[in-house]
């Protein structure tokens, strides 16, 4: 009994920490609709800055608490700079485009933190006055954890006062509910956004700084917290502070008690919770449905017509190059091109649901990975030849796409995207944990092509043929009645229903088709690499797919192709050129975001249209 009470208290302490980070994220999202991927980096910077301040200030209460608060304010200022220099310029870009920018910031911060603070984990001092422990029911419990349990509700209370008792807070709440109306009433939105970003970043920094007496400060803090923070925000309901608090509590306690019953549940628990909550409550625990976008009816995306002649010629030339050049390249060049072809299809499949479908996915790697595992499992357990494996890949991915999609496409916006992430993580953890069948994180080895396709060049042509074919097929689908229906339900679900389009079914089938196409890419990737690992369906791979689509431009059909080529090419080159490739890649992404807010292909189209308009 005593043990259970203490377990509950441990859960509360974790919940409190989690809430601090999530509260900043939810405030920022509520007002600016920015999916701030860099929030974890701000948290990490908070911890590092607090370490520097606390260890260099004189010991004692003033040094410690001054250092913690100082770090929080500094991080707030860093957030402010990021907002003013970067995000403010791209609020008008398509939805989720800001995610690309904040991902660039993540990469930059990772290398800068390594350069500044070194590779070794840092251990901060304990909090003065809260070093030891106290006895609760005869068992020891750390004082600092008790203090943390108190911090969460206090911060929640202060935020509540700020949002309900000040004019600024009222404006923020108004903007969270309806930002256009607030703008129409003459409120200076720029100031509002900037100040909200400052507050959100400060909370992230505070969350990081308060971990100092509890955990070591290390370079992995950013990515380990960001997904959990997102889960808390989404489970609670986007933009809802009390929802975030409730969700943090739920997850903290479930975790504390979950490991008593199933010790290995740690990998997947938060995602299971999120999946269940979102299936039952599509807008999180305390979230409200997004106000119907007023602009929605008028601002339908431009219709995508057939490609102009110049683009057709360019595409034909590129295809000819892709066929004619490889025989003159070395094996390595061919394998890079093979990978590019695969990623073009992977990006194009995501684009089908993101662009024409209007549904973002944060978990598209699941279908890539399921395709790869489908092929590899067939090869390992059934002794299937390569072509059979490649045929199984899209079937496996497509079936799971339909199953997962059945739940995901009922939701909208970020909720839907986060549910895809939850399913992807569940699939990932099955691959990771079911060691007897999947080999766990050691993966499945020896998935090499059949003898006839073993030469790199032959395999390249096979991959090129399949990927190009599938990509063109997806393009064809977009121009077919099905594609028009897909776009119709995106632009106005009401009107689409009114003319007899079953929006759910269209979205669902679109999701399944995209999953199957990603499965083809995954199967080809498996045989190209010779092995399959859970990383194939990990979050980083899903993020890569998003980056490719966003980089190329969501609103063009050639966007994902250009984006995949640019992203893979950049990364491949940079890794070989410099140890600081993350810093350089991050800067390049930020620059691209600033100069081409419509994506690369979007910018090209805009220029093309402008030149024709002038003529």
């Amino acid at each position, binding site marked *: 009994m005593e043990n259970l009470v203490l377990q509950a208290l441990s859960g509360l302490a974790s919940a409190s920490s989690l809430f601090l980070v999530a509260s900043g994220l939810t405030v920022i999202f509520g007002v600016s609709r920015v999916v701030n991927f860099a929030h974890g980096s701000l948290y990490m910077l908070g911890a590092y800055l607090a370490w520097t301040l606390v260890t260099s200030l004189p010991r004692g209460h003033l040094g410690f608490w001054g250092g913690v608060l100082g770090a929080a304010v500094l991080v707030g200022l860093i957030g402010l700079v990021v907002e003013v220099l970067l995000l403010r310029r791209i609020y008008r870009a398509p939805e989720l485009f800001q995610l690309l920018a904040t991902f660039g910031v993540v990469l930059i911060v990772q290398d800068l933190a390594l350069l500044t603070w070194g590779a070794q984990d840092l251990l901060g001092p304990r909090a003065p006055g809260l070093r030891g422990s106290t006895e609760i029911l005869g068992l020891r419990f*750390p004082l600092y954890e008790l203090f943390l349990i108190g911090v969460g509700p206090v911060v929640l209370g202060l935020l509540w006062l700020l949002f309900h008792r000040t004019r600024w807070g009222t404006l923020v709440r108004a903007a969270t509910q309806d930002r256009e109306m607030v703008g129409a009433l003459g409120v200076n939105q720029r100031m509002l956004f900037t100040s909200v970003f400052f507050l959100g970043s400060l909370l992230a920094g505070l969350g990081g700084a308060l971990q100092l007496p509890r955990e070591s400060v290390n370079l992995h803090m950013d990515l380990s917290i960001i997904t959990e923070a997102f889960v808390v925000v989404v489970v609670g309901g986007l933009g809802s502070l009390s929802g975030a608090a409730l969700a943090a509590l739920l997850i903290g306690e479930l975790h504390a008690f979950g490991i008593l019953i199933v*010790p290995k549940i740690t990998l997947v628990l938060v995602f299971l919770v999120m999946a269940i909550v979102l299936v039952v409550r599509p807008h999180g625990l305390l979230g409200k449905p997004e106000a119907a976008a007023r602009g929605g009816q008028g601002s339908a995306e431009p219709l995508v017509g057939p490609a102009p002649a110049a683009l057709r010629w360019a595409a034909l030339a590129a295809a000819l190059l892709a066929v004619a050049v490889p025989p003159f390249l070395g094996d390595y060049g061919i394998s890079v091109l093979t990978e590019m072809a695969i990623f073009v299809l992977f990006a194009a499949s995501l684009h089908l649901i993101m662009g024409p479908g209007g549904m973002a996915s944060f978990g598209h790697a699941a279908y890539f990975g399921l395709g790869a595992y489908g092929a590899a499992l067939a090869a390992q357990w059934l002794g299937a030849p390569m072509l059979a494996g490649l045929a199984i890949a899209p079937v496996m991915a497509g079936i799971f796409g339909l199953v997962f999609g059945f739940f995901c496409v009922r939701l909208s916006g970020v909720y839907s995207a986060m549910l895809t992430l939850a399913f992807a993580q569940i699939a990932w953890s099955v691959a990771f944990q079911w060691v007897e069948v999947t080999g766990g994180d050691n*993966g499945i080895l020896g998935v090499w092509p059949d003898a006839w396709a073993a030469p790199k060049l032959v395999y390249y042509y096979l991959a090129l043929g399949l990927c190009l074919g599938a990509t063109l097929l997806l393009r064809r689908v977009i121009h077919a009645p099905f594609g028009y229906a897909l776009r119709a339900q995106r632009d106005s679900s009401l009107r689409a229903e009114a003319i007899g389009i079953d929006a759910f079914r269209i979205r669902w089938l679109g999701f399944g088709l995209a999953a199957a196409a990603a499965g083809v890419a995954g199967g080809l990737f498996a045989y190209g*690499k010779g092995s399959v690992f859970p990383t194939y369906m990990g979050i980083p791979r899903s993020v890569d797919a998003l980056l490719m689509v966003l980089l190329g431009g969501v609103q063009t059909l050639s966007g994902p192709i250009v984006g995949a080529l640019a992203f893979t090419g950049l990364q491949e080159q940079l890794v070989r050129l410099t140890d600081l490739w993350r810093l350089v890649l991050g800067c390049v992404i930020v620059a691209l975001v600033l100069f081409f807010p419509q994506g690369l292909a979007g910018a090209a189209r805009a220029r093309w249209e402008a030149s024709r308009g002038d003529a």
Partner: protein
Amino acid sequence: MALAAPRIGNAQAAGPIRIGEINSYTAQPAFLQPYRNAWTLAQEQVNAAGGINGRPIETVFRDDAGRPEDAVRLAGELVNAEKVSLLAGGFLSNVGLALGDFANQNKKLFVASEPLTDALVWARGNRYTFRLRASTYMQSAMLVEEAAKLPAKRWATVAPNYEYGQSAVRWFKELLTKARPDVSFVAEQFPALGRIDAGATVQALAAANPEAIFNVTFGADLTNFVRQGSTRGLFERRRVVSLLTGEPEYLDPLGDEAPEDWIVTGYPWDQIDTPAHTPFRDAYRKRWNDYPRLGSVVGYDTVMAIAALLKKAPALETEPLVDAMAGLQFQSVLGPVEFRAIDHQSTMGAFVGRTVLKNGKGAMADWRYADGKDYLPADEVVRTLRPQA
């Protein structure tokens, strides 16, 4: 092709011998920066001493960012574009396995430096893959020897939830139960790697009231586990047996909060004054103005093993290299080491001792060098573990 090969060999005869090295530099910098520093040092020393029969060695480093699929691509680049004579490196087990499989498929020698997984030389072992570092099995066996001497009968385990943690716990349980049939395992915790919820994990272990704990967590997880565990009194009146905790990479960040009297494997760099180790330590400090970590030993010895191989092998083609690698003996900074012909595992050992606090820092005391050759299963067992060609 057969005719062309010797001609290329002659054309390159004056140039350096190239080694391709792949590791997760951006993902695991704490271990790999000292590793790479020592690698550079070793290469400079080999070249200053006249290289390999007059030819210097040269290394092309690549960062796989912790992704096995990228490691495979880079391996292809090193072999095909950079024309390296052999591959080396690997930190994460799955990256090591992917590279091992690549080596097998492309018939290229791969000298794995760090990956600990047993599968690399046993279940997934192949002709072209060799491993330097003492494996999970070997290090677990070293600790079981000590654990069996303890009076404790009720054991709990805590390990990161991935292959390394799972295997370590499995071997520890199996070997300890064999040595001491009277022990029982009363609790196990498997926190996600890098994301331990230390308070809840410590509390869950304490609730089972074990007499001793086997710990496999390392890095940030270890730090958080130790902090919560000490504050909550988990380690009082309980013995802890802990893998890798004596390595400076993981012990030093703990500072004056390093746990005392844990039985650990590790590397007491400041106390090893052997003719092989002292010059290495001095040279490393002089070159990098820092003390060596265990990663440094692994990096340095990988180069020395490769240098010994290149001197022994009659030719730089893969098959003669592989033949020379089987049974290769060289003088590592820890002592003489042999790459066993039977399973391609080196006999490099580890230091086993207990932790103490010295001058406000963690250190190892009462340590001894456990030679790896004494902690491997009998040959007939190894043959059942490894696919026989």
